């Protein structure tokens, strides 16, 4: 058990000849608290797996240092790091039984056979694998195999963290949420740090206490699901989290308040007037509503999604999405909309500015 600290970690894969290296990880400074349940969320190719592999030591970062508590582990080999990792595709040792699979990491470390038996039985119980212990691992279904992969991580009582690299990709949808809640349960039982890589926001938000959002090799925001939803620090977080994503509209500033096509908007988080750069106003579709007085719009499209409707409206060719209750009447005559000032935020060059960044 340890706190994992990243200090200016950067990584570039060796570039093709004659080309400049492209950084897959840019200046990551991050503390993973002991016992936390983290999700590492971002689109494919944003550096999530690279980051994960630097923790487990499968990859040595080209710059920066990694600490487990006070011990520097940057160059320590994987086997000495006390890290478990579960991969996208289940890895089982085909010729072994389920029991031998689970015992493998312990036997490799020279553990006494009676202790092995005890520990494996305990973990098998947790994962509902007891009935299959004597079966050949190759005969199991994909979710059974993934449970074994997971079990090989859990079976070691000394791990600092368990890393998951999109572990549910190949699992059937109905088993996905079962395994996910199992993971959550195991986290509560064992209290071991878990870091879960995914590009699926639902997975990230349901699993994690804290979500780390990555974009283009950098960590753009770390926060609870609620924080990410209410206060995206970067435009990417606004787009990526929530469905549909956040509205971003170009604006000018007038005494710290945003002006969108000559409509003065109110925000509870004004900024100073002296911003240089591209300013935009951001508001989630959930916080836009029809009113008698506000910005005149033209209704473009209404999608009924059952519990709610997504309405696409336009003002001066700018598209604004709004989420409206299923039974609410959509005004047809001169519709006007308004943004909730508490949820209206100002972005400058893609980053959140103005007050209320740390409420």
């Amino acid at each position, binding site marked *: 058990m340890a706190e994992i600290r990243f200090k200016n970690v950067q990584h570039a894969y060796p570039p093709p000849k004659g080309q400049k290296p492209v950084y897959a990880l840019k200046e990551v400074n991050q503390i993973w608290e002991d016992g936390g349940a983290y999700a590492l969320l971002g689109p494919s190719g944003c550096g999530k797996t690279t980051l994960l592999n630097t923790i487990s030591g499968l990859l040595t970062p080209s710059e920066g240092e990694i600490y487990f508590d006070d011990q520097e582990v940057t160059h320590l080999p994987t086997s000495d790091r006390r890290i478990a990792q579960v991969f996208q595709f289940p*890895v089982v040792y085909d010729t072994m039984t389920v029991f031998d699979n689970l015992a493998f*990491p312990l036997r*490799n470390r020279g553990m006494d056979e009676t202790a092995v038996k005890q520990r494996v039985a305990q973990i098998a119980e947790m994962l509902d694998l007891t009935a299959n212990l004597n079966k*050949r691992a190759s005969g199991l279904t994909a979710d059974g195999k993934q449970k074994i992969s997971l079990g*090989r991580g859990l079976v070691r009582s000394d791990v600092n963290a368990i890393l998951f690299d999109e572990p549910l990709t190949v699992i059937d949808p109905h088993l996905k949420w079962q395994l996910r809640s199992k993971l959550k349960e195991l986290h509560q039982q064992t209290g071991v740090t878990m870091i879960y890589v995914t590009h699926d926001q639902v997975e990230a938000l349901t699993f994690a206490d804290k979500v780390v959002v990555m974009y283009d090799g950098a960590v753009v925001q770390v926060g609870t699901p609620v924080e990410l939803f209410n206060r995206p620090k970067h435009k990417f977080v606004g787009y990526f989290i929530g469905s549909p994503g956040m509205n971003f509209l170009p604006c000018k500033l007038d005494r710290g308040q945003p002006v969108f096509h000559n409509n003065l908007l109110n925000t509870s988080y004004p900024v100073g007037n002296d911003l240089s750069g591209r300013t935009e106003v951001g508001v989630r579709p959930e916080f836009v509503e029809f009113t008698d007085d506000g910005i005149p719009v033209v209704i473009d499209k209404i999608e009924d999604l059952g519990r709610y409707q997504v309405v696409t409206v336009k003002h001066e060719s700018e598209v604004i999405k709004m989420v409206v209750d299923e039974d609410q009447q959509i005004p047809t005559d001169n519709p006007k909309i308004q943004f909730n000032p508490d949820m209206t935020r100002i972005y400058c060059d893609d980053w959140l500015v103005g007050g209320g960044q740390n409420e």
Partner: protein
Amino acid sequence: MNKTLNQKAWWLVAPVLVLVAFNAFIPLMTVVNYAFQETFGNNVFFWEGTTWFEQVLRSDRFHDALVRQLLYTGMILAIEVPLGIGVALTMPRKGPWVSVCLVLMALPLLIPWNVVGAMWNIFALPDIGLLGHTLNSMGIDYNFTRQPVAAWMTTVLMDVWHWTSLVVLLCYAGLSSIPDDYYQAAHIDGASRWAIFRYIQLPKMKRVLTIAILLRFMDSFMIYTEPFVLTGGGPGNTTTFLSIDLVKIALGQFDLGPAAAMSLIYFLVVLLICWVFYTLMMRNEEQ
């Protein structure tokens, strides 16, 4: 719905049937025909029953050739399979050297069998051959035309040179199909190099290895051209393997009956060993 019955479609199978008849069935039945009868030419046959079979099975000559054959096949399998696996394991998985290695490996396989025999014959000649001359000038008395042990070593070495590549290429294909995840997981689990080989690489190579062993078994068990060109079965009969002996009986002595009976026994032995081996390997698979 009424289906139109049209038996004319059978004609579409006819070309295949004719082909199989001419390249397998008719030649095989000719052999069977000779195996149970005696002929003095002019298509006059006398029924002999199982006489030829009994004669072949009782003959020391056949026993000796069979033992030599089993020993030879056993030796080349014992060398080529581990060596092939070893070479495949050390070949690079990525980068520009991959194609270089693959081409180098494939080269011996492209050389015609009689050329391989001739090459090794010249290579091993004690007076002018590179190998023979070097060994003799180092003070080792080596002459594969006179010494049985030298003849055996040269024949085995030639086969290893010619065919290890096949095992290497098949094993390499098996190794390349293992996803990186397996190696990474093994590192996480703290597996040793040996454990990685034993529990990941070997099981994943099992299918291709089965094929490789079967192919090498069949080819070496029926080997003719290379030892015939290299040693001609000598010195004496020491490198006379089954097919060399068979040709001697059939074409040298013109004993068609015993030769036909021996061919059938030979065929059944190959079939039986392959079947037993394959069944054993596949039964393990199912468990």
